């Protein structure tokens, strides 16, 4: 299945987010092997150079490490993965609070709503 991508934002940035998500969610576990640029580009149905650019960006952030002979792996630094995950969670929270405030809710009311929301199980 080709990846669903927004049409109004740079493609490489969306690939970075998508792979980041797959790493923090454990789809690609710490230390696990990643598909090659070519394979992943074919899966996502995107340009291989754009995928390469996304990998370079993820390498710069440390989430991906290149083994000289063995392709690319997810970092084994679980602390780093946790920090990235928290950063992403914080962004979601900010968006959420922003939207709720647009709807006219106060901080207190939002908290009350969250407390009353049953925890969903997505497994």
């Amino acid at each position: 299945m080709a990846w669903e991508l927004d049409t109004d934002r740079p493609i490489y940035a969306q690939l970075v987010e998508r792979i980041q998500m797959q790493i923090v969610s454990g789809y690609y576990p710490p230390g696990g092997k990643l598909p090659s640029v070519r394979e992943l580009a074919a899966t996502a149905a995107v340009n291989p150079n754009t995928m390469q650019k996304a990998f370079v960006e993820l390498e710069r952030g440390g989430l991906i490490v290149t083994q000289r002979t063995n392709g690319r792996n997810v970092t084994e630094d679980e602390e780093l993965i946790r920090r990235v995950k928290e950063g992403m969670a914080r962004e979601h929270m900010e968006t959420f609070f922003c939207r709720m405030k647009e709807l006219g809710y106060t901080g207190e009311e939002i908290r009350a709503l969250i407390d009353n929301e049953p925890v969903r199980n997505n497994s």
Partner: protein
Amino acid sequence: MNELVEIVGLTKAYDAKHVAVNNITLTLPKGKIIGLLGPNGSGKTTLIKMLNGLLTPTQGSIMINGRYVGVESKAHVAYLPDRTYLSGGQKIREILDFFVDFYADFSRDKAEEMLRSLNIDPETKLKTLSKGNKEKVQLILVMSRNAELYVLDEPIAGVDPAARDYILRTIINNYNPDATVIISTHLIGDIEQVLDEVIFMRYGHLVLYTSVDNIREQHGKSVDAYFREVFAC
């Protein structure tokens, strides 16, 4: 050396009033998938035919990997025309024979493997295939060459979404860092995530040559939306 195609001052005038390509200067690197975009009559097919040596420029020049366009360059340029030149009465096997004879860089194994993956029997005649399969077979023939430059004129026009996906994936899977693929199309939205760069043409002029992500970054919209804005009448 990373330049593959060097176009300098290229002009094609059919007569004094009809200048199809007007003084284009453009350098294209290796290893890119490039969209050639423009409204009808903007000069895309004329430019493509000059890249293939099927039309002679009125002025200016094209070099492909250091050679002027001519007999030698044709051996390294794989071209998918907008209309087929193959005869429908031929069996696919006969067309493969023809390609083996004609192009030193044609890999019969590669073509046969791609045909197998589509369950297309080489003993069928081209004319008995559906439109989508006809397009796929022609793309397979072109992509089975080990060329330096692939020029695909409207490869996804008139095919269903599944065939279009197959065509785009075939282009991605055959990506070669030493070769460049030029794809001309009107269906920008369907194809833009496969492209590195885009060339916009209008009235024979080069309007823009930039990367897909540059357009998205600078204008906050897809190449498709930006194209509609630039070419709005």
